């Protein structure tokens, strides 16, 4: 029983990451109809916003400490960060510690700018082009973005810890009457879950309670007619793209402490996020979110030892297996709209 609750919790958390990534993608892919292979790169750039901010905060100057030696036997150069030098180790240290949450503020303008530039500079010429062309250009862009990040930060993962306040885990089991340590959950992952819920809710509210969503949907179905009705659809597509980039980026920022960011983390998530969006159904935001949670939970269950002993390797394929089953039983995924990318 506790094992099951544990995996549900796990699945919810995993699912919130999937849902958040898929949410950004579905704004571009499900709504604007652009097969955006650079979406993973946006996620990755978000994570590197956190890395960059913590690098900026830890910019430091060197002083020579004659009592210690470095690996070549010379006196050791000790680094002190400017922030700590200026604001004192207490406040400065706290700022460095809180780099990841601070990076949210840092990432929003950057990601929106990246989204705008990407859309205005490149994607806007591709709305009417075949999906295959979109794949080629966004894939090329993804490679370029990755390589740029790699040139600056190297190929290895870069540790980007959460604030010390969120270290450790929360004992759910005790709350539910199980013995200690039966169901524990890291604090930061709980934060991530809450964050995902807020972002998802915000995006839903924006698209539900304004006409923006309807206009963009209409624009995707028929750009020309929307133009005839006096609407500047280009502008709205750009905004949508910026929004999607921001959502992707924020998902990345918050993900940085969970797994150390590296330059190819976007590609690792790319296929999965496409699967999530399509399983959710093209053009459906709730679908993408639901599919994210569903796949997250099923994946968690599949990784249980009891399940794996019956079906060896099931955790390797569960996502794809579920995707196939859902797409065969429901022609347009969970909640897909008719006619979106069906030809």
């Amino acid at each position, binding site marked *: 029983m506790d094992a099951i609750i544990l995996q549900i919790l796990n699945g919810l958390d995993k699912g919130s990451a999937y849902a958040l990534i898929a949410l950004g993608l579905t704004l571009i892919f499900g709504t604007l109809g652009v097969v955006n292979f650079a979406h993973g790169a946006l996620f990755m750039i978000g994570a590197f916003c956190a890395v960059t901010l913590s690098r900026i905060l830890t910019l430091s100057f060197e002083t020579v400490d004659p009592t210690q030696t470095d690996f070549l036997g010379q006196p050791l150069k000790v680094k002190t960060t400017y922030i700590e030098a200026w604001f004192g180790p207490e406040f400065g240290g706290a700022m460095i510690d809180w780099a990841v949450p601070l990076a949210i503020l840092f990432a929003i303008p950057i990601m929106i700018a990246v989204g705008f530039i990407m859309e205005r500079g*490149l994607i806007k010429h591709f709305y009417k082009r075949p999906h*295959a062309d979109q*794949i080629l250009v966004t894939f090329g862009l993804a*490679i370029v973005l*990755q*390589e740029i990040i790699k040139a600056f930060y190297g190929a290895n993962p870069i540790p980007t810890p959460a604030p010390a306040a969120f270290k450790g885990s929360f004992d759910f089991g005790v709350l539910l009457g199980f013995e200690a340590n039966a169901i524990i959950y890291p604090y930061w992952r709980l934060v991530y879950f809450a964050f995902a819920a807020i972002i998802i809710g915000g995006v839903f509210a924006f698209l539900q309670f304004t006409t923006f969503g309807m206009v963009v949907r209409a624009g995707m179905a028929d750009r020309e007619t929307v133009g005839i009705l006096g609407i500047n659809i280009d502008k709205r597509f750009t905004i949508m793209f910026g929004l999607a980039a921001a959502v992707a980026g924020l998902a990345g920022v918050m993900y940085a402490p969970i797994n150390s960011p590296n330059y190819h983390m976007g590609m690792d998530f790319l296929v999965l996020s496409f699967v999530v969006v399509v399983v959710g159904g093209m053009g459906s935001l709730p679908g993408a979110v639901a599919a994210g949670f569903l796949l997250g939970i099923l994946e968690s269950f599949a990784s249980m030892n009891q399940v794996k002993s019956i079906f060896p*390797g099931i955790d390797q394929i569960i*996502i794809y297996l579920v*995707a196939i089953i859902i797409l065969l039983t429901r022609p347009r995924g969970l909640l897909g709209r008719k006619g979106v990318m069906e030809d």
Partner: protein
Amino acid sequence: MLGLNNKDTLLLIIVAAITLLAPFILNPFPTQSAMAQFNAGYPDLMQRFVIFGIFAIGFNILFGLTGYLSFGHAAFLGVGSYSAVWMFKLLSMNVIPAILLAMLISGLFAVLIGFVSLRRSGIYFSILTLAFAQMSFNLAYSVLTPITNGETGLQLTLNDPRILGQVTTAEGSIPVTSLFGLEMRSTYEMIFGPWSFQFNAGYYLCAIIMLLSFYIAIRIFRSPFGMMLRAIKSNQTRMSYTGLNPRPYTLAAFVISGMYAGLAGGLMASMDPLAGAERMQWTASGEVVLMTILGGAGTLIGPILGAGFIKYFENIFSKINDNILHSWFAFMPDGFENALVAIVHPFVGKGWHLTLGILFMLVVVFLPGGLVEAGQRVAKLFRRRKSEKTSDESAQSKPAE
């Protein structure tokens, strides 16, 4: 000729000429020159060009004609490779049974996957094929290791039974793949002044098979069947109200292109008897998609061009290191030399991905029809210049009259 119209015959002849003379064409630089780095005329890469050409031609039969974008085609390539290597392990080192089995097994696999996936169209189809291929890849990498040898890839060993051939050679090594005794790796090297050209048996086998595949593809493109496939791409509703059942048509196209992929996989294993699981990964499927679009989807020659383009960058650009850059720019003053090396450095060697990414973007932005369009534009330019010339001439000739 051969049941083709003049234009197609010409195309076929040109492609045949280029592939058969490839050892010359791809090695334009003397071996000792600095530019020799750009020579691509060595057996492995030439084989890769034509093998991936076959893969892309087959993919294009499905994608270019019907518009169904399969994102799992690499699975068939992988299955073909595994079948071929098993044939080498169990039966004999002759490539013919291996290639035939590769096509057969991948064809069967395609029937299975196609039958299920073709129930959906558009992006849903793409994701279904992707899911099947990723499942195959993940299983091949881990659970199916007894069949696939997992991470390392299936390879020949000294303990293979090989019922119809020798188990080990006289020297105690593993025998090599051959076509009735003609070893695939045997290479004749022709030295011509400072140039050297390599003629490899395996390459010519692949090249001939590629030409055959290309010829068949042309026939398919021009056949009523090909027209039906284009009709499916254009309007499935009209198709079914016209009394045609789109499903068997798409399935047939899917299986044909799956068999092309299997053939490519079989050949790959015949040239180098190892079948790695990565051959089935989504990135490999993505690669053939990119090849086809880059070259020009729906065109006959495009996919071959795209395949060549990507494989060239992967194999040639990745090998250019700083050492080589320095030797290129050595004639310049030191400061200049270092500056130039620093500028070029990010784009070669470990930066070859960056160059490829930039080229993808440039091609798709400026040549919407892919590399084929570049060719068409050049041709048009020539024609225009010619016609300008003639009109110039006539303008000039007028006063003389």
